[in-house]
């Protein structure tokens, strides 16, 4: 069991938005609620069960200089040992970029010494404060610079532009968390098989509590042969994050009735059908079916709904099996 414990360090200078991120992704805060958060004192630990047998130990490290100095001197072996992932947050509006980078270098130095296999993610946060047409340029400049800095330490950086006010936060975190899932390939294989049975437009897997995207048929295909099915090309490329966002809003909305939802079936305009249903205890599945226009009539469609739900039920035991593999 101890091998499935993952230690994530969340670092960055004070006020860069670390605790806000954590609260939105893992504690169901809305972006507006995060204004109430105060400064984090020292390190705040949170233990989150993710996909059943995986535990994320998130170390939210307060970013004030006093604490920071401590991390790099007296506490360094405590903080930087057995780290799987370092998530370093940069405030794009920060006035003292040199100081930010200096701290980043310090943590890279320590990380190389104590856990050289760790993955490093960089989030350029508060992107909403930058003009839209300047965001890409700024992001590229920053990433080039940071990659150059981290080259001597042999870390390959993965960077994301993020903001708590849109879906970019979900995208970043879902990639971070997915990098920790060990049996990803099994999930992907089974998802493709399931898709072959259903002949769906697209299937997406979500983690239940956070609604982060674990996998989707379309992204698997993209990895395999570099192309997508052409009918999905002109869809919104940010749709996964948007779906996460929408479903989380829905969950919050019905929590007013002190309940949760089992499934959601939408028969959209344009002959599309959506099924969102619990797959295992820890996962939700979303299936998008494209109806051929020839099939119509209320009765037939009602039966079809039942068939899809039955299919999801039968898929359940296979996915539960993969989950229990350690």
């Amino acid at each position, binding site marked *: 069991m101890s091998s499935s414990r993952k230690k994530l360090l969340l670092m960055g200078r004070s006020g860069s938005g670390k605790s806000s991120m954590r609260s939105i992704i893992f504690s169901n805060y809305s972006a507006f609620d995060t204004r109430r958060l105060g400064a984090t004192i020292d390190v705040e630990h949170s233990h989150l069960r993710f996909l059943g047998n995986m535990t994320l130990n998130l170390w939210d490290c307060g970013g004030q200089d006093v604490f920071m100095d401590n991390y790099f001197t007296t506490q360094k072996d405590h903080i930087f040992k057995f780290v799987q992932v370092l998530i370093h947050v940069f405030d794009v509006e920060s006035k003292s970029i040199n100081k930010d980078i200096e701290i980043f270098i310090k943590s890279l130095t320590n990380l190389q010494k104590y856990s050289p296999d760790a993955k490093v993610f960089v989030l350029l946060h508060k992107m909403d404060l930058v003009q839209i047409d300047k965001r890409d340029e700024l992001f590229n400049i920053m990433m080039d610079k940071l990659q150059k800095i981290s080259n001597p330490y042999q870390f390959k950086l993965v960077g994301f532009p993020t903001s708590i006010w849109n879906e970019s936060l979900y995208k970043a975190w879902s990639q971070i968390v997915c990098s920790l899932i060990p049996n990803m390939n099994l999930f992907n294989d089974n998802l493709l098989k399931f898709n072959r049975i259903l002949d769906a437009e697209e299937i997406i897997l979500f983690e239940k509590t956070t609604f982060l995207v674990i996998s989707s048929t379309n992204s698997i295909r993209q990895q395999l042969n570099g192309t997508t099915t052409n009918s999905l090309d002109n869809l919104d490329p940010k749709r996964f994050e948007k779906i996460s966002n929408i479903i989380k809003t829905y969950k919050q*909305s019905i929590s*007013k009735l002190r*309940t949760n*939802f089992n499934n959601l079936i939408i*028969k*959209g305009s344009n002959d599309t059908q959506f099924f969102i249903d619990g797959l295992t205890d820890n996962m939700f599945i979303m299936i998008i079916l494209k109806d051929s226009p020839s099939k119509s009539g209320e009765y037939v469609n009602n039966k079809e709904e039942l068939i899809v739900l039955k299919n999801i039920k039968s898929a359940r035991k296979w996915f539960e099996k993969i989950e229990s593999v350690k």
Partner: protein
Amino acid sequence: MEGMLLPNPKDSNATILLMGLRRGGKSSICKVVFHNMQPLDTLYLESTSKPTTEQFSSLIDLSVMELPGQLNYFEPNYDSERLFQSIGALVYVIDSQDEYLNAITNLSMIIEYAYKVNPKINIEVLIHKIDGLSEDYRLDCQRDIMQRTGDELLDLGLEGVQVSFYLTSIFDHSIYEAFSRIVQKLINELPSLENMLDNLVEHSSIEKVFLFDINSKIYVATDSSPVDIQTYEVCAEFIDITIDLDNLYISESPSNGASNGQSNGEPTCAKEVKSISYLNNGSILYLKQMIRGLALVASINNEDNDEFNNNLTLIDYNVNLFKSSLKKMWENSRIQS
């Protein structure tokens, strides 16, 4: 110049007139309710300098007309007589966080004039910006304003005027609730609509049903059971979620770009949107698109889990009946007007 903007009294559009002193929050209300603006963004609205009109067509065609607060309506060159004759409801916004004595004097003057010109007018008062008041103080404030307005009207010799009061804020759903009530008073077919919804509830084990305007989240009608604000909020948000998810998978290709039926209210080639969600506590949220940008949203009791499919087919059938009668009703009302 102003005469151009005034609605023609013979226009079939029911008009709601939004009035109040300056900085009372009238434009913010319009933006939030009809343009889906985020409440916080309304901080940056400019002061309105001339009357603006919002057209919105749900079951009936409505226009909401907003007047600048600083105008004096009793200047001779202003055609206020025709203006007041043409409107169905007068909504007066009082800022509850400000000194409201001036507003009450202004209100009673307007009421006196409007009532003389058009005795059939509905007078509604929004006691606005209550989000800043504590719970206890809200009721005190309402009681005080009602008392003072009553006294003022009594002094002017107008005891018979019906004035309705609402506590509102743009930061929660109270403004939608208030507008729903106001709009409902203007729909002539409301009693039969409510009757139809009551029938639907009775025969389909539905707990609560709303007929929503998709765009503004105002409910045009509901069944006769009391409105629970939480159910309303959940139902209104359920529409958003359904529409948002649906729109994600409408591809931008030109062949079906025009089939986005929700925004223009006239679903021609697009299929009607329908969504169902089973909740853990055994109830079901049910949404079905109706005519003219309306949607029916119901929360359904579902104790018996095994039978739910049969039950749902029955509800589908009943809702379809409701929809066809809604169509008939709307056609008839158009012929009359």
